């Protein structure tokens, strides 16, 4: 819809599609619904690391996010709508975090505050650090910074409110919690030899089988750096070009082989 010129909507002659004909009531209802939802967003009283200090600083009287209806920080997930993931998510902590998220009632939102929660942050290389909470939970708004200042956090919260404003009751993707049946809980990670995401059990099993066969696993080769390719292509010497051609052929063969393998795997999976 992005290419639609919104001004055209003001035109009284604008054709209303059939499937939207009966939705006029819902749009204004959505507005009320969104307004009330975004104006009483109760965050979970939940601090993880350094960013939590700035989050409390935001809640305190100088920056005061109660101006946005968020003053009631709840200790219990059952009473909160917004999880501000404020800090480094460790493997040991991701288990309780997922549990807390599952306990929050719908509609629920997640705001990743700071570099750590968004993508691992400065401690990303560590062995106990999850590279971003979005590996496990759906994140609505990311606030970069290390730590984001209180003003930056409020900017993020306003962004979240804007996001809610843009949602519509008519769109099932926006309000999945009105669907049939209970919503699926996020599977809780297992602390084994390392953290294990149950959703990835299949991949892990496959990798483990490869390992049992003595094949390398766990590391996927990166595509060759692009710059080198460009430079090589521009290489003027014909000899180099010939060598390139050989490489291209090899790469092609490799790709073909890989595709066949993947196909075989797929068949095997179907057969199971």
């Amino acid at each position: 819809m992005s290419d639609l010129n919104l001004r055209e909507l003001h035109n009284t002659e604008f054709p209303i599609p059939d499937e939207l004909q009966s939705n006029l009531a819902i749009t204004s209802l959505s507005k009320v619904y969104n307004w009330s939802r975004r104006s009483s967003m109760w965050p979970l009283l939940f601090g993880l690391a350094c960013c939590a200090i700035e989050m409390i600083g935001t809640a305190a009287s100088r920056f005061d996010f109660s101006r946005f209806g968020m003053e009631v920080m709840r200790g219990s997930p059952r009473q909160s709508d917004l999880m501000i993931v404020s800090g480094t998510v460790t493997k040991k902590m991701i288990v309780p975090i997922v549990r807390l998220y599952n306990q929050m009632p719908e509609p629920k939102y997640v705001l990743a505050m700071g570099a750590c929660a968004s993508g691992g942050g400065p401690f990303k290389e560590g062995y106990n650090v999850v590279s971003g909470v979005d590996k496990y939970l759906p994140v609505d708004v990311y606030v970069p910074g290390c730590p984001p200042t209180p003003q930056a956090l409020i900017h993020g919260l306003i962004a979240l409110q804007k996001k809610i404003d843009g949602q519509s009751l008519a769109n099932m993707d926006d309000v999945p919690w009105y669907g049939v049946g209970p919503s699926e809980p996020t599977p809780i990670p297992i602390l084994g030899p390392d953290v294990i995401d149950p959703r990835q059990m299949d991949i892990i099993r496959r990798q483990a089988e490869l390992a049992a066969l003595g094949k390398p696993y766990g590391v996927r080769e990166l595509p060759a750096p692009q710059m080198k390719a460009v430079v090589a292509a521009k290489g003027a010497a014909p000899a180099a070009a010939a060598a390139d051609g050989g490489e291209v052929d090899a790469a092609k063969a490799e790709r073909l082989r890989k595709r066949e393998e993947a196909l075989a795997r797929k068949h095997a999976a179907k057969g199971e």
Partner: protein
Amino acid sequence: MTMYGQGILRGLTITLRHLVRTYFNDMRYMGKKYFNQSEFELRQGMKTEGIYTVQYPEEKIAVPERFRFTPFLVVEDADHPERPGEDWCTSCGICAKVCPPQCIWIVRGEDPVTKRPIPEPQAFYIDIDICMNCGYCAEFCPFDAIKMDHDYEMASYDRTTAHIHDKEKLSKPFSYWLNIAPTTANEEAEARGSWEHSDTVKSKKKAGVPSVAYTPTTDPSQVMQMIRATMPEPAPAAEAAPTAERSAAAVAQAGPSAEDALKAERLRKRQEALARKLSKEAGSQ
């Protein structure tokens, strides 16, 4: 014998006083507390009483000069008479080496023909999901080419597309830097002894041309004027023509070597990108 309740009563008086003081302050300024620049300064300063909430986003605390958020790269302004839009960064790699969480990736510029390194990065990335805003890159860059930005309003809905800053996104003109941190920019210019890039200073010295000496100013347009004033031979026709054409003309003069053509091409692309970015920014504001 202690009288129970005394301490509590005293406490309650104090909390009550806090409450009253805030409102009293409000009344004293008759509401202009929230609209007046000098009142803001008073409210956020040492003399304030009661609560002193910042009404973000209607009013924002302007951050101090040394404030650091994510880094950005300094490039010459688009109206720079000699090297419009060119990088200050020489891709020396010091920032990438000193960065504690190693979140800077630099592709060193390389001349496509001679394969020799050229002082300008081919690509420059910073992953702001790793960056710890420590300011080391800015502190140790020998060319004052990377600086800490003051723009903290970067919340986004998607990090995969928005959180690795590439060169286009990182580049900001020198005048921006002079605007957000006039004191620091002046100190640096003083240390360089000139308002120009230290390499320019060096090459000009070699050529025997005077570079723009350091005179304290906080006005970017004045810096531009100073640079224009010391231009060796101001050719008025070239001055008036759009910069891209001018550089193309310069290439033509120097003789059509493949090297120069490529350079001109790169320059043009960069200028276009910069212009795009500037217009985008202007549009968003």
